[in-house]
């Protein structure tokens, strides 16, 4: 259609190439971030399940065989590494466009939830080590329960953060 009713807009400056490079890098990093996010969710589910089984085994009348301990420790370590990698990828991804929009949105929920999950995971490691070190002491059961509860809270924060992106 060959008519113009609005004034012609100015052509954009050719700083576009630099922006393009940053976009490409950001896309790649956020794609990998999603991959690690999915992996973290699966590993977290495994960690929570084996953590609950381990707690029931040790403190819930399960015979205290310790048969879930090694698996739980392995999954916990893998979850932490996967989560940290996903977080670093998101934090280090370049921002190609100026951010003009302020306020709370679903990404804000995602970020705050992941912050809670980060605090949860950071506290679970020393808490777990301390709980194991209390073998034979009266407060080991309490520490194990605390570790379990913090684990559930961390998993809930992770689930909230992931679900927020679907709205």
């Amino acid at each position: 259609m060959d008519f113009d009713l609005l004034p012609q807009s100015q052509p954009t400056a050719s700083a576009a190439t630099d922006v393009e490079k940053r976009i490409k890098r950001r896309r790649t990093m956020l794609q990998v971030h999603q991959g690690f996010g999915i992996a973290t969710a699966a590993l977290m589910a495994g960690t929570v399940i084996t953590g609950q089984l381990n707690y029931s085994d040790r403190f819930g009348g399960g015979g205290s065989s310790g048969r879930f301990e090694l698996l739980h420790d392995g999954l916990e370590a893998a979850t932490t590494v996967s989560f940290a990698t996903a977080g670093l990828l998101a934090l280090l991804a370049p921002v190609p466009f100026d951010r003009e929009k302020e306020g709370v949105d679903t990404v804000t929920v995602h970020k705050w939830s992941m912050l809670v999950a980060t605090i949860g995971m950071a506290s679970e490691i020393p808490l777990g080590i301390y709980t194991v070190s209390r073998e034979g002491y009266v407060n080991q059961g309490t520490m194990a329960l605390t570790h379990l509860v913090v684990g559930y809270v961390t998993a809930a924060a992770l689930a909230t953060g992931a679900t927020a992106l679907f709205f």
Partner: protein
Amino acid sequence: MILSLAAALVLASPQTWTLDASRSQVSYQLVHKLHQFTGTDHRLQGRARVLPDGTVQVEIRGQVKDFDSGNSNRDEHMLETVEAEKFPEVLVRALMKGLVASGTRDGTARVEAKLHGVKQTEDVPLTVSFPTPGAAHVTGVFNESVEGFGIKRPTLLFIPINDAMKITVDIWFNRDGA
């Protein structure tokens, strides 16, 4: 004699209308297997011209960065997806014939939309109403193809969005000089 000549000149000259940005919006809706979302632009520019033969020409321009979907990360991703650094604008031109400026009328407009530097043209059903003599309200809903604009469909969890993009138009024009 002079009056009738003046009247003929007035009728023969095109009438122009300006988009009322305070009341107008255009939104897109995209569907992903896990959710759907809508981005809306309230900061539009537009003009319309009614030619003596009743043909209406419309031109509307929006900035890609002004579309708000309620998720800043998604909006940023959309800027990346449509390569807003190279193609910052959405430009729509429309032609509608035989429009009578009164009441409410359903009609079809030939619409040319330009996004990502690519044009798509199609016939779009629109409803045009004239609530007051100096104001026109245009509404319409139609679908465009994302890939038709040469845009690679964005993904979430490695699943791409559907190709169909639902466009909802709700635009007001004020007649110049009214």
